[in-house]
Each structure stands twice: as structure tokens, then as C-alpha cells.
């Protein structure tokens, strides 16, 4: 414990007062203000002392205290504003000073201890009261923040609280100086009364002094006081939330409700965003592309490969991403509304229960939830797991969570190939993602980590509330901004690399003057394509997107836009349209089983390596060996699953 030198009453602290005389005369009664941090103690001190105060370090310490004179029923008291402290059991120099001053004996013994307590956090504020009431010091409780408590539906009966605590309780608002007269009266009465009667504390257990038993007794006393003085309105509010939670957090209904809510989110996202996406697409492929082409022609580069890079590469690639902005914004907004309403915390409980039942580490669900936004921070978030085996297991599972970058590809393929059920198809991809996490997790546990136990997780569930529009919009904007910033940088870089590869001829032709099907880009993709033929998409155009997707999934669509913008039109009815070109590619590759091939492609895209940034994060957290193992695992799972989907799907599609 820190030793704090005692200071004679009314002596100047070694403050910034430069020895200026204090307003309180020597021998003035000593009133100390104690209480937890942020309960309005210093505001009360300022209201009591006005200009008659000094602020500075307590002698021999670096702890800052305020000291000043306060007129109490005709006499000036010496008031000391102690630093914030929850209890008299110090964990910091601030709390050590509070203990030393409050429990000082002899001439430095305080005449009155005013404990400032927040009505909004009553139980937390009363532990100090419980400890001071065990001494013979006169105590007055100054009850602040009544307005904050009222806004939360909490009402504290000061009279009932006083009766339960056995000391005066004065409700006041130091900012408006209301209730200060009551405090003057209560402190004045204490100053006239002298010694207080300490509260009765049951004797310590027979096995000797026990810190937990003593604290437990105080909390029992606090609970009695809170129960006696806090109105039932709070209970009603909690019951209202509890009533919803009986369904939302129920073991069977909870997960079903969660799935239903997420289906609505994806359905609404894909349906409502379509008109805006179409409008943006028309804007980018029409006026913006024309303007870009005109600009390149004007500066005299119209006949060079630069035109292809600017118009078919940067404008087509970035433009394609821009068409997804309404969709992402809508999804981020709906998720923000769910978070702000308090529902997402219930979803976390539901997910955690599911994982615990499957024998997976309960806490692992948090990085996995983060992974549905972006895998990179999710891998880093595995640091919250205390067990090294849990960390490795979870970091290997994170890539199977479907990040938001993959969402854009799902939406493009779902709206192109399954227009009537696009929302359901996207939702199904998220279900597959959850299933993969669970199944691969169980598989790894059954083979590599048989001894991994489960950690309990406790979450503070906030009551349900009406979402704030401003907060939800702000969160949406932040997430959209983050997505766009990451995506735009990656896209511009990959567009340039893809353009370079597409400009290099294999065989005849010169740089920049070669059909894309005869470029190095197509040749590299053709080399890999046979491996994916059993999955129904062994066509170089489809495989090239997966190679680009290895760098980042954000660049998959832009690479297609680049490839097809340079290719011959696939359909005379809709020349150059990405959807029609994709149809052609998948139909040819699958021998007519287009639906099955697209489903297999989406599953492969979900399960194989998310991006190089995730690999870098995995290498940082797990080392090279586990990262290589992870890449191999993802490729094996992706290929096996894609082949299975296509081979089974071709029977029906």
C-alpha cells in the first residue's frame, strides 16, 4: 500500500496556490468529499467552494486534490475534494490517498465524510459508503445524476435509501446548484452531532479473515439498500427486454430467428438496391466511359494501349465496383440498425451457444463474426483467445467466413443466373459459410486438437432500444468508406497488373496489340483450368477471375470487366454485357449444366484462400508452417466441395 503523509487541517497543500491563505481558518472542521470517478464530485466541490479554493498535489504525492472553504450554517468548513475511488481498498495512489485521508486519526480525522454517489449506478457507488459506515465517522451521501438515472427509467427514493443506509441522503444536482441547501443542512447536523454509530458487521467466518466474505457481506447490505430504494420501473424495462429474449436467445428458436433475420437482410439488400445499381451501371458504362475515352483521345493517346488501360481497365473496373455501393450501403445500414437495437448481442449469445454445443471454443465466435466483415482483422482478433491451440484453430477457420468482398461476386452471379431468387442464393452462401466453419472446425478437432476444451463466455446484454438514425448512418458511412478505400486501392493495382498480362502476347502479336484470349493472362489461366474441369468451370475466363481473387476478392469483378471488355461480344442482342458473357462462359465450361457450374464456382470462391492480406495476417499470428497448412486445407476443401456440388448438381440442372 502507498504511504501518504498526513497534513494538518487547513495547512496549504503544496499546490499552485503559492502559499496563498486558504479561506478556511486554522482548526476549521474538515469535510472530505469522496466517491467513485465520474459521479460529479468535483462539480459539487466547485459548487460548494466557488472561488475560495485551490487545486494542487497533496504533499508528498503526485495526486491532485482540491481544497477550499465552505460556509456551513455560520461557520467555514475546510473541504477536501479527494480523487475518485471505488473503495477504501487501494489499487492506485489516488485510492491510497483517499484511504489515508478518510481513515486518518487524531487531529486530521475528518469531521464529516460526504460520499458522492451516482443514482444512475447506485450499487457501484455504495461500496465506499458501506466501508465508511463501518467506522464511527459521520457520513452524508450526496446523490447526484438523478437526471441521467431518470432518463434510464431509474428512480431512487432518497428517504428509503437513507433509512437503509442509516445516514442522511441528499439528492442534488451540482450543475444547477439544486439541493445544495439540503447538503448544508445535513452536514451542519453532522458537525453538531459528532460521532456516528457504525453499522453492525457480522463477525468474520471462523476460518479467519476472508476478503471475499467481508466484501460479500457489504454487497448483501448494498443489495438490501438498492432493493428498498430503487423503483420497479427498471425491473419493468428489463422484463420487457427479457420477454423478447425468451424467444431471441432461446436455444432452438433463437438460431432460427437469427437465420430468418439474416435472410430478410439479404433479401432486402438484393431487391431494394437493384434500381440504383442499374442506374449507376448505365452512368459508368455510358457517359463516364465515353468521357474517359474522349479525354485519352484528346491528349493524343487514343491509338496506344493506354486507352485500353484507362477505359477498359480503370473505368470499367472501378465503375463495376461503384455499382455495388448502394448494395453495400444498404446491407451495412441494416446491420447497423440491428446492432444499435441490441439484437446483435443476442445473435452473439445464440452463435456462442451453438459453437459451445459443437465443442468448439466459445470465444472463437467473436473473431468469426468479425470475419464476416473482413478476414484480416478477424485473424488478428484471435489474440483474444487465451489458449494457443484455440488461436491456431480459430485462425484456420476464419478464412471460411464469407467476407464482404466475396458478397459482391455472389450478388453479381446470383442476379445473373438466379434472378428470381438472388437474395435466397446469397443467404444460402452465408449458410454454407457457417456450415464450413462448423464442419471444418469439427474435423480439425477430431484429428489435430482432440484436447481443446471450451471457455465460458459471458456477455453483458444491453436492453433493446429504438435504433438511433444518426448513429446507424454514421456507422454505415464508416464501414462503406473502409470498404471503398481498401477496394479502390487493390482494384487499381490489380487492374494494372491484369492489363500488363493481357497486353503480353503468347506467340504472334506485339505488346498491347493482342486479343486477350492469346495473351499471357489467358495462357496462365488455361494452364490451371483443367484442374477445375471436374467442378464444371474449367474455362480460362472463369479460372482467371479465381487467380485474381487469390490477391483480393474485391478485384474479381473488375478482372471480368477487363477480360470481357476486350473480348468479342458474346451476344448480338446485348453486346459486351458482363452477364451475357458470363452465361456463355459457364454454359460452355459445364456442357450446358450452367446452374450447377455457377453454384460450384460460388462454393469454390467461398472456400479457397480469401486474399494475400489474410495470408500475411495468418503468417504473423501463426507462422509460415500453419499458414501453408491453411492454404492447402482451403484449396482441398474448396475443390472437393465444388466438384461435389457440380457432379451432384448436374443431375438436376
Amino acid at each position, binding site marked *: 500500500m502507498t504511504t501518504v503523509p498526513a497534513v494538518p487541517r487547513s495547512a496549504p497543500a503544496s499546490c499552485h496556490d503559492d502559499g496563498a491563505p486558504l479561506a478556511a481558518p486554522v482548526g476549521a472542521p474538515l469535510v472530505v468529499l469522496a466517491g467513485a470517478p465520474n459521479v460529479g464530485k468535483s462539480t459539487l466541490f466547485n459548487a460548494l467552494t466557488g472561488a475560495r479554493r485551490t487545486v494542487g498535489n497533496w504533499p508528498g504525492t503526485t495526486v491532485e486534490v482540491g481544497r477550499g472553504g465552505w460556509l456551513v450554517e455560520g461557520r467555514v468548513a475546510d473541504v477536501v475534494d479527494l480523487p475518485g475511488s471505488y473503495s477504501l481498498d487501494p489499487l492506485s495512489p489516488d485510492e491510497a490517498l483517499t484511504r489515508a485521508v478518510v481513515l486518518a486519526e487524531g487531529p486530521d480525522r475528518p469531521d464529516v465524510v460526504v460520499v458522492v454517489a451516482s443514482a444512475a449506478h447506485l450499487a457501484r457507488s455504495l461500496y465506499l459508503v458501506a466501508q465508511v459506515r463501518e467506522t464511527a465517522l459521520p457520513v452524508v451521501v450526496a446523490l447526484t445524476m438523478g437526471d441521467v438515472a431518470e432518463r434510464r427509467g431509474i428512480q431512487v427514493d432518497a428517504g428509503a435509501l437513507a433509512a437503509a443506509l442509516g445516514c442522511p441522503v441528499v439528492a442534488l444536482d451540482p450543475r444547477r446548484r439544486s439541493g445544495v441547501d439540503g447538503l448544508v443542512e445535513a452536514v451542519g447536523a453532522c458537525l453538531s452531532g459528532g460521532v456516528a454509530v457504525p453499522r453492525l458487521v457480522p463477525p468474520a467466518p471462523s476460518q479467519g479473515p476472508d476478503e471475499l466474505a467481508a466484501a460479500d457481506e457489504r454487497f448483501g447490505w448494498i443489495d438490501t439498500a438498492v432493493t428498498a430504494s*430503487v423503483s420497479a420501473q427498471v425491473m419493468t424495462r428489463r422484463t420487457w427486454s427479457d420477454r423478447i429474449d425468451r424467444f431471441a436467445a432461446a436455444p432452438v428458436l433463437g438460431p432460427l430467428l437469427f437465420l430468418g433475420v439474416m435472410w430478410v437482410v439479404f433479401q432486402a439488400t438484393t431487391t431494394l438496391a437493384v434500381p440504383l445499381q442499374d442506374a449507376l451501371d448505365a452512368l459508368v458504362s455510358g457517359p463516364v466511359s465515353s468521357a474517359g475515352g474522349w479525354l485519352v483521345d484528346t491528349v493524343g493517346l487514343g491509338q496506344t494501349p493506354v486507352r485500353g488501360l484507362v477505359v477498359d481497365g480503370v473505368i470499367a473496373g472501378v465503375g463495376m465496383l461503384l455499382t455495388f455501393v448502394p448494395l453495400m450501403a444498404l446491407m451495412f445500414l441494416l446491420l447497423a440498425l440491428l446492432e444499435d437495437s441490441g439484437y446483435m448481442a443476442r445473435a452473439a449469445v445464440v452463435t456462442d451457444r451453438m459453437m459451445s454445443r459443437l465443442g468448439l471454443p466459445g470465444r472463437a465466435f467473436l473473431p468469426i463474426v468479425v470475419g464476416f466483415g*473482413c478476414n484480416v482483422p478477424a485473424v488478428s482478433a484471435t489474440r483474444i483467445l487465451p489458449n494457443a491451440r484455440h488461436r491456431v484453430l480459430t485462425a484456420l477457420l476464419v478464412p471460411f467466413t464469407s467476407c464482404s468482398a466475396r458478397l459482391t461476386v455472389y450478388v453479381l452471379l446470383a442476379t445473373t443466373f438466379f434472378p428470381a431468387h438472388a437474395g435466397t442464393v446469397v443467404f444460402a452462401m452465408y449458410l454454407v459459410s457457417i456450415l464450413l466453419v462448423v464442419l471444418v472446425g469439427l474435423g480439425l478437432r477430431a484429428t489435430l486438437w482432440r484436447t481443446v476444451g471450451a471457455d465460458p463466455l459471458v456477455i453483458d446484454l444491453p436492453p433493446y432500444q429504438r435504433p438511433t438514425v444518426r448513429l446507424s448512418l454514421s456507422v454505415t458511412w*464508416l464501414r462503406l468508406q473502409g470498404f471503398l478505400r481498401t477496394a479502390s486501392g487493390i482494384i487499381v493495382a490489380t487492374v494494372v497488373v491484369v492489363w500488363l498480362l493481357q497486353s503480353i502476347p503468347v506467340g504472334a502479336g506485339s505488346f498491347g496489340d493482342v486479343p486477350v484470349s492469346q495473351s499471357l493472362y489467358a495462357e496462365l489461366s488455361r494452364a490451371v483450368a483443367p484442374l477445375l474441369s471436374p467442378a464444371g468451370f474449367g474455362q480460362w475466363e472463369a479460372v482467371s477471375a479465381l487467380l485474381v481473387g487469390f490477391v483480393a476478392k474485391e478485384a474479381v469483378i473488375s478482372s471480368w470487366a477487363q477480360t470481357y471488355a476486350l473480348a468479342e461480344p458474346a451476344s448480338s442482342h446485348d453486346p459486351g454485357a458482363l452477364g451475357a458473357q458470363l452465361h456463355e462462359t459457364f454454359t460452355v465450361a459445364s456442357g450446358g449444366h450452367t446452374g450447377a457450374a455457377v453454384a460450384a464456382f460460388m462454393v469454390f470462391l467461398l472456400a479457397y484462400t480469401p486474399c494475400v492480406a489474410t495470408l500475411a495476417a495468418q503468417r504473423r499470428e501463426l507462422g509460415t508452417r500453419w499458414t501453408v497448412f491453411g492454404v492447402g486445407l482451403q484449396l482441398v476443401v474448396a475443390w472437393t466441395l465444388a466438384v461435389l456440388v457440380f457432379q451432384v448438381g448436374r443431375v438436376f440442372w
Partner: protein
Amino acid sequence: MSAATHAGGRGGGPLTAVLAAFDAGAHSLDEVARRCDLPLDTVRASVDHLVRMGRLEAKELAIGCPTSGCGSCASGTDDGAAGCGSSAPSSRRSGPVLVAISLRR
């Protein structure tokens, strides 16, 4: 309120009851409050105190993001930039905060 009822049959006050609820696998502070028949405010104060005493371990887990950091970053740095794996969430981070509490063995 009777201290004996708090612990669900075990002797002791709110702190003992809260520890017993954690030990029995309660998943949320609401659930702890229900099991112990205590007001949520008292449960929160008890948890704070048990953390101070070293009987419980609490760790804040952020799913929000810093003002100018990556859109889905779990742990932004204090200067607002995306900083994966920071020891504590950014003071500028917005969004909900989950607190994982576990018994110290």
C-alpha cells in the same frame, strides 16, 4: 433479499452468488441476474468488484471500428488508424462493445 437465495442454495451474499452463476455456465449478465435473483445494477457492481479483487477476469472485445480506420477492423489503434490486434479498443472506436468475463482458476 436473503443472501442464501442468491447463491441458488449455496450460502453467502451477492458476490458468492455471482461467482456460482459464472461457474454454472451463465452466458450473460442478464442470465446471472436471473439466476441470482439480483438487480442487474447489483450484478454489474459485483462483477466490477470481483474483477478488482482478481476473482474474475474481464476483457473488452471490440467489433466496432475507429473513426478513420478500416471499415471492419476489430481493434483500431488509439490514433484512429486501423491497427489489427491492438491491446485495447480505440477510444475513438464506435459501435457496440462486448465484454468477455471468465473465472480465474
